């Protein structure tokens, strides 16, 4: 049976020009993907995780034929990228760029019927498919209004509906819950799960680790153009060994968090800001031995601690263990 997605050593280098005066410019090379290899099995929900700018969208754009890779090969539903692009497009449903990918002067239904035509559905099938998607995603209330009158969340739901119009075996969803409120995001994830149970393979990019943990069978964590870890969520958590996580909240000056990083027995640490407080995440193989030393060092450098929580390892901690940075910190940057 064909593997839906096989990626071999995919690389993408952008060349950006920087103007220096009227006639001069210098060229800078940016390696957005540095040899990514992945296989995604039929019927999986595969999460691509990473901070903004990690290379997720570049990878997605290459897989959906919008971008040409610099090197490497990929097969989507058995068709080779750059050689059989139209066949790939016919077998993939995509949600990219959210609300910007819609015609705002058309109604939601008109958008869906139009995109159905681009995927070669016969006229009657377009209308039937649009009706079915509108019903499934509860868009009926506003489907016949121009998109320009929609809220941001409604536009996102319509963009998701558009990805379903061609009933493709592979769905590629790029940050689909962005701008959705919590109930709508939950509803969208439920639909993704249901589609997956019906046999669709899903690639789901997000920078929200909790979302990936609850939804995905397997995940790949991408950072600075490289896959730094991949596997099932439990396997990834186990991959940081017997290590545990301690979260410390309070007022933590920079010099205090820097001092912690050099302590013996600490694998990684990263600091972020949560609700006006600092939160220091520390990954260590020996919580009991490290904790007193940790508190002493922080207090000695002027930190005022309000909460100390030993926690279960999350995907966020896996990211910290591999990179020494928090995802929130990178995404904010």
């Amino acid at each position, binding site marked *: 049976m*064909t593997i839906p997605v096989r990626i071999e050593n995919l690389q993408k280098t*952008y*060349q950006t020009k920087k103007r220096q005066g009227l006639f001069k410019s210098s060229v800078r090379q940016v390696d957005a993907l540095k040899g990514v290899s992945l296989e995604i099995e039929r019927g999986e929900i595969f999460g691509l995780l990473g901070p903004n700018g990690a290379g997720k969208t*570049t990878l997605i*754009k290459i897989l*959906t*034929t*919008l*971008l*040409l890779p610099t090197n490497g090969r990929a*097969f989507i*539903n*058995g*068709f080779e990228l750059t050689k*059989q692009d*139209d*066949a790939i*497009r*016919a*077998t*993939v449903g*995509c949600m*990219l*760029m959210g609300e*910007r*990918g*819609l*015609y*705002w*002067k*058309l109604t939601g239904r*008109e958008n869906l*019927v*139009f*995109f159905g*035509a*681009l*995927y*070669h*559905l*016969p*006229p009657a*099938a377009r209308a039937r*498919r649009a009706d079915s998607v509108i019903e499934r995603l509860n868009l009926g209330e506003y489907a016949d209004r*121009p998109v320009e009158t929609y809220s941001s969340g409604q536009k996102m739901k319509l963009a998701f509906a*558009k990805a379903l119009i*061609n*009933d*493709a*075996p592979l769905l590629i969803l790029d940050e689909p819950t962005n701008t959705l409120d919590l109930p709508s995001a939950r509803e969208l994830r439920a639909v993704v799960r249901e589609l997956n149970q019906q046999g669709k393979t899903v690639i789901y990019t997000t920078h929200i680790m909790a979302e990936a943990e609850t939804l995905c069978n397997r995940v790949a964590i991408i950072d600075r153009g490289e896959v730094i870890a991949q596997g099932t969520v439990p396997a990834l958590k186990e991959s940081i060994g017997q290590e545990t996580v301690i979260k410390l909240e309070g007022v933590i000056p920079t010099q205090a968090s820097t001092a912690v990083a050099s302590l013996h027995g600490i694998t990684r640490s990263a600091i972020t800001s949560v609700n006006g407080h600092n939160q220091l995440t520390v990954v260590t193989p020996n919580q009991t031995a490290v904790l007193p030393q940790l508190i002493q060092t922080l207090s000695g450098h002027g930190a005022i601690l309000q909460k100390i929580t030993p926690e279960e390892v999350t995907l966020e901690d896996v990211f910290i263990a591999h990179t020494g940075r928090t995802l929130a910190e990178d995404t904010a940057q």
Partner: protein
Amino acid sequence: MTAVSPHKKEPYERMSEPMATLSAFAAMVKKEFIIQLRYPVEFVASFAQIFLIVVVLTLAGLMFAPDGVQSESSSDVTGLVVYGFVLFIYLSDTLWSVGFNVRREQKQGTLEQLYLSPASKFAALASRVALTLLWTGLLSIGAAVLMSSMLGELPFHNGPLALYILLMTLSGTFGTGFAFAALTLRIKEAANTAVNLLQFGFMVFCAPFFPFAALPEPMLWIAKAIPLSYGVDAFRSTLMGYPNGFPELAPIGVELGIVTLFGVAMPLLGFWLYRKAENQARRRGSLSEY
């Protein structure tokens, strides 16, 4: 590796070629039409504007009819102005609408969405002109009626041959429009400046509103190097029944040859350039830049 066949495994049937392309083309034209109708003021104003331009040009044309509007020479002047104007609005719309539409889709973010689908890129480009040509056709008829009512009866000869010249010139212009769309993908907003320059260049060197004889010698040589000039000259000379001094640039047989070559080769060249620009945009990731 075995490929998945979307036609066999999915519940929704797909159309096969060429129906799929024709149907996608029709859907794109319909989409453009609906969007135009939802800007009613702009839609009506674009029609009204053309007729006002017609009146201005007609009155200006009267200055060149020394014996009054009913004389034979005035009939030639009328023909020159009317047919030149008809061709100008046809060519102008064809030339710019492809590039402008591509840019508009790029700015609103829908260009990438079109590239996500397997729909024919040629159909996507052609659909951007189809509606324009329909409106321009209606406008041309209206403009011709208005101008002849002001200036007297229009000379009308060799209708089928004139239609052939019009179609070939349009086809060549359509190809030039592809090339302009390619340029738009590369230079984006700067394309507007290029349009202003080229549009005035076209108005001067292709002489749609005056005879080529009015051009000074060096400018005439430039005019002769532009295939579109032969389309303008052949079209109006043919409809006017080749009065003395027309066609102005070359014998009609030569002009027909140039116009035919332009009409056949330019769409191929233009589409090739567009595909090159498109691939470059896919390499640079600039399809969605705005």
